[in-house]
């Protein structure tokens, strides 16, 4: 138990037009978990439940060993939370926010905060309402980073940021990685970021967890096969292949449970395998969502 900073089991939550069903995920200590899924999939709701801000209808949530939402006060001392729908006080300066956080948290690192101000190109004297969207996002993240919390829970930290700002944020996240006692859970629409820095990936769509596992193992399970079906040869339906698109004699097969013998199985049926390609997380994302929606409609 102490090896997981987040452990969610059997969590359900019903809203009028949306339902979270049987959510389960684990984040081991010292790892980065990336949460991906389409808009409205339930990422933000899941994150709020694990922060204790929303009370689940059923299921158990443990964060840093505390049961949520009962233990949220104790847990939140060590959690740094930022979400894209969160705002700071527009009429106050960034400096006021820094001092406010410093007055509450013992772990506040003032020198690190200063460095981050420079790195992010922000000035403490500025009022929040005078900042651009990207600067506001960086300001909110700065307030989280400078506390050096044991667990960072970030809901879309890089959404809406220009490439440079995104790079700055990712750089700080990888700095967190340097301490094997600290962990991160973040949700993102940017599959490239998730692919690059996550140790584990959780896929959520329409209130269900589709996949949750080790990133390398996950990426390894998916392949795109480029096939040629000579005249008269029908491509067989093979296990592990979730979709085939054919146009003329050329076809593309997507596998989500790739085994080394799969290309051979196609060749045995008379088809030729032109290439076996790895897929990017974005391509997997689209294939996964399309498949799970087809299954629902079927």
């Amino acid at each position, binding site marked *: 138990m102490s090896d997981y900073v987040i452990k969610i089991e059997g969590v359900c939550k019903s809203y009028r037009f949306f339902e979270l069903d049987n959510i389960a995920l684990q984040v081991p200590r010292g790892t980065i978990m990336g949460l991906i899924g389409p808009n409205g999939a339930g990422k933000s709701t899941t994150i709020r439940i694990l922060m204790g801000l929303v009370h689940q209808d059923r299921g158990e949530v443990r964060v840093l060993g505390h049961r949520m939402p009962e233990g949220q006060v104790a847990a939140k001392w060590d959690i740094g939370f930022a979400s894209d729908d969160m705002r700071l006080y527009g009429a106050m300066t960034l400096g006021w926010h820094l001092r406010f956080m410093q007055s509450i948290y013992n772990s506040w690192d003032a020198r690190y905060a200063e460095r981050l101000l420079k790195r992010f190109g922000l000035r403490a004297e500025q009022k929040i309402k005078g900042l651009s969207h990207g600067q506001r996002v960086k300001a909110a993240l700065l307030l989280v980073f400078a506390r050096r919390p044991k667990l960072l829970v970030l809901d879309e930290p890089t959404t809406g940021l220009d490439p440079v700002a995104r790079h700055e944020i*990712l*750089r700080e996240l*990888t700095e967190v*990685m340097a301490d094997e006692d600290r962990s991160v859970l973040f949700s993102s629409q940017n599959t490239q970021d998730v692919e*690059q*820095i996550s*140790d584990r990936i959780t896929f959520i769509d329409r209130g269900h967890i589709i996949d949750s596992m080790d*990133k*390398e193992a996950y990426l390894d399970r998916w392949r795109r096969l480029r096939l040629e079906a000579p005249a008269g040869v029908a491509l067989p339906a093979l296990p592990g292949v979730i979709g085939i698109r054919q146009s003329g004699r050329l076809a593309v097969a997507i596998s989500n449970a790739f085994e080394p013998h799969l290309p051979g199985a196609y060749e045995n049926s008379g088809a030729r395998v032109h290439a076996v390609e790895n897929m990017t997380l974005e391509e997997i994302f689209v294939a996964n969502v399309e498949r799970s929606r087809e299954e629902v409609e079927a």
Partner: protein
Amino acid sequence: MFVISQTDKRPMYLQIMEQIRQRIAVGDWVAGQAIPSIRQLAVDMGVSVITVKRAYLELEREGVIVTRQGKGSFVASDSEVGTRIREQELAQQLEQAARNAALLGLSPRDLEKRIRATYDRVTDAEKESV
């Protein structure tokens, strides 16, 4: 420093492995030298720990590096390791060349001619640059 290419279609861990092999082949990292820990390299590259871990595990399996419990990772203290890496690279490249040639419909003879021509051109260029 190590950089992941976004346009490179190969998985990240393979890119990392190749770059480490290059470092060793070029002589930047010598046999027996300590190399960055998995976590350290992950932070430096801005890449997940698990990806670097996988790269290290594969390299260890190939005998390119060794990890000593509690001490860290080192370049394998095998004086042939630089050569061995080059051998592996050559084998991979030849396989790729053979595959491409077959797809293009070249005969083994044609391929041989092309390799010879390329070899001559490359070695001539190197002689001139010396």
